[in-house]
């Protein structure tokens, strides 16, 4: 007999049509899975009641894979095949990884993402992460008694494209339908119910096992806006373990250690760190493979001293995030603590001191992200009634931009920006006396407008006639929480305005997006050439325009022969300007530039003479 959960009014599902959705916090040190049952979000524990799954995967020679506590138990005896903190390597090349030399793995540098050679073959971080997700997937199906429909996986706010894609791939490899990647701080804010709170600005301080994130979230009318994020993708609890490890090695005067001993001492260091959250001292004992004994006592004062610089390292990103958000410490209404490492008293203290208020820490810092992700997944799966399905936080799947001269796409909002988002960019007029500007809004990753998807066109009129480049038009792109894009253009001197609203993702399915992305990778080289060609053409047109204007205005400064030479070079450029030979265009442009150098100098002198004519030195405001 299936077990039932309480649904929202009117939302009981038909049998076998329940949409089971989960939120997954794929962490560096630990991973969790949570779901919403009978309206309440809860982390799903394993058969032994343990909520966390250590993000550790051990590959065995017979092809079996151990994940979680089983792998953790064997990590010191089989360090080469026991992968910890794989999240640090997601979408990263070997050169991007801090302390790679300290990791006991046999890294294989591969283009784009490093790989690890294990007894079961070479594994990519994506495969390692997928093993963790598979275990969580199975746990969820056992807990919910049915097939899982959808999942939301969280990622650090500033995971780049490669890292996000790697995370999504891992989800797919584990058989999950990944509805969305959600930024961890946003998930934490959702878990704390800040979406129900009064309006205000909140900071999310997330010190996990391997990443530090500080995010400034602004809440208005129930909508979150990430106003600034900063952090350090190579700073986390692991570094505190490492500090303790170094302290142990120094205090015990240990010779360089083998991989197994290193792993053993790192585990002991971590245990000591965790114990110091509630105790004033921790004893570290270990028997090394060399027969040496380690027996040390670490007190909290020493621990604070040796990790002081790590705590301090989190302060600079906090200041930066506030600066980026143009906010002061007093503007922040609350600080959410996320990540097991925030249990350390010195962290709580430093954050409290910085923001001059006690941080929010009444939810388990290990669970908040998973709980928030589960709540988001529940909404996305359609289990909430209209009106309570708070505005969704999404990312823009493909970049949004406008067409500039020569058919080039200028990206204004890069893909994967979280929405709502607003970005502005200033453009100048291209021609002398230009009174209008037409805008073509496009979406896509390619360099040429013709390869992108056209979304809308609109015109801005009423620009006062000015010299080319003098008219300044500010173009504002804004995508609201529903994915609706509005584009507004405003001329700065006259405030002439025009705008248009479009729905960018309309009609673009996942397969379209995938194809467009694939195209953009495949055509990267062609696109660069095309861009160079178009830029050369645009520059040539601009130069011809300028020369023509100058000849009309100051042609009298030239002798007939000089004028003829300039006209000849201009004609030569005009002849190739429309071609696809960007080198020829550049050469002709340079020739015309050289031919007009003298002319430009004389125009300058003439201009200065005109300006100074009839004035005394003293009257000049120098």
């Amino acid at each position, binding site marked *: 007999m299936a077990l039932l*959960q309480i649904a*929202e009014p009117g939302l009981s599902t038909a049998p076998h049509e329940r949409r089971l959705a989960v939120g997954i916090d794929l962490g560096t040190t630990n991973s969790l899975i949570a779901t919403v049952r009978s309206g309440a979000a809860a982390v799903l524990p394993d058969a032994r009641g343990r909520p966390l799954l250590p993000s550790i995967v051990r590959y065995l020679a017979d092809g079996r894979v151990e994940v979680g506590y089983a792998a953790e138990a064997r990590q010191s005896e089989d360090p080469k095949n026991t992968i910890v903190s794989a999240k640090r390597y997601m979408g990263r090349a070997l050169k991007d990884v801090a302390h790679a030399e300290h990791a006991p793995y046999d890294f294989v540098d591969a283009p784009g993402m490093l790989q690890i050679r294990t007894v079961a073959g070479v594994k990519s971080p994506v495969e390692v992460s997928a093993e963790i997700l598979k275990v969580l997937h199975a746990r969820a199906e056992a807990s919910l008694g049915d097939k899982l429909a959808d999942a939301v996986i969280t990622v650090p706010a500033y995971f780049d494209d490669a890292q996000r894609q790697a995370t999504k791939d891992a989800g797919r490899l584990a058989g999950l339908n990944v509805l969305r990647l959600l930024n961890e701080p946003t998930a934490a804010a959702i878990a704390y119910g800040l979406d129900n709170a009064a309006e205000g600005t909140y900071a999310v301080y997330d010190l996990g096992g391997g990443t530090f994130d500080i995010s400034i979230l602004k809440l208005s009318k129930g909508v979150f806006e990430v106003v600034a994020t900063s952090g350090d993708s190579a700073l986390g609890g692991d570094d505190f373990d490492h500090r303790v490890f170094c302290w142990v090695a120094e205090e015990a005067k240990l010779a360089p250690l083998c991989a197994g001993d290193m792993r053993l001492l790192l585990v002991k260091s971590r245990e000591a760190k965790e114990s110091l959250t509630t105790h004033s001292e921790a004893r570290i004992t270990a028997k090394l493979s060399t027969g040496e004994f380690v027996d040390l006592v670490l007190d909290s004062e020493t621990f604070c001293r040796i990790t002081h610089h790590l705590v301090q390292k989190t302060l600079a990103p906090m200041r930066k995030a506030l600066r980026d958000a143009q906010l002061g410490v007093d503007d922040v209404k609350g600080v959410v603590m996320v990540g097991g490492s925030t249990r350390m008293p010195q962290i709580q203290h430093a954050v409290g001191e910085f923001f001059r208020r006690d941080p929010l820490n009444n939810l388990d810092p290990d669970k908040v992200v998973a709980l928030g992700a589960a709540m988001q997944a529940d909404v996305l799966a359609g289990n909430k009634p209209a009106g309570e399905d708070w505005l969704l936080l999404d990312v823009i799947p493909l970049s949004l931009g406008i067409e500039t001269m020569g058919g080039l796409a200028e990206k204004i909002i890069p893909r994967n920006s979280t929405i709502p988002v607003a970005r502005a960019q200033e453009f100048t007029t291209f021609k002398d006396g230009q009174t209008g500007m037409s805008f073509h809004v496009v979406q896509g990753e390619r360099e040429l407008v013709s390869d992108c998807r056209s979304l809308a066109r609109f015109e801005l009129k009423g620009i006062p006639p000015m010299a080319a480049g003098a008219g300044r038009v500010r173009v504002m792109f804004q995508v609201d929480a529903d994915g609706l894009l509005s584009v507004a253009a405003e001329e700065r001197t006259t405030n002439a305005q025009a705008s248009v609203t479009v729905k960018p993702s309309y009609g673009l399915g996942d397969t379209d997006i995938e194809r467009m992305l694939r195209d953009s990778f495949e055509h990267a080289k062609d696109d660069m050439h095309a861009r160079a060609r178009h830029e050369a053409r645009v520059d040539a047109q601009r130069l011809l325009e300028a020369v023509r204007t100058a000849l009309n205005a100051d042609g009298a400064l030239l002798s007939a022969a000089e004028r003829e030479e300039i006209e000849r070079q201009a004609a030569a450029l005009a002849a190739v300007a429309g071609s696809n030979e960007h080198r020829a265009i550049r050469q002709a442009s340079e020739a015309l530039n050289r031919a007009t150098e003298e002319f430009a100098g004389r125009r300058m002198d003439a201009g200065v003479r005109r300006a100074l004519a009839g004035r005394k030195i003293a009257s000049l405001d120098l």
Partner: protein
Amino acid sequence: MAVTLTEKAAAHVQNFFAKRGKGVALRLGVRTSGCSGFAYKLEFADAVSPDDHLFESHGVKVVVDPKSLPFLEGTQLDFTREGLNEGFKFSNPNIKDECGCGESFNV
């Protein structure tokens, strides 16, 4: 005949209501669907209609709409755990048979 909750079910219901922060009663009902005729409805109720039958069991208010009542008379709602799975279970004296999954039934 009434519709009742076991003490355990009532405790869980109250807990869920507390977490949800609103709601006036627990709504039980049946509707036609599923692989063998009827399916249970188990929802939070934010409003009670004048036609609803009202029960109270271990401090939990339960409402049942008049059409569903004949099919639910004497039903007891329990909360159980099966392995990792946990949730509510109907014990309904009116049913003749149910489909393998237990989510739908016949009377």
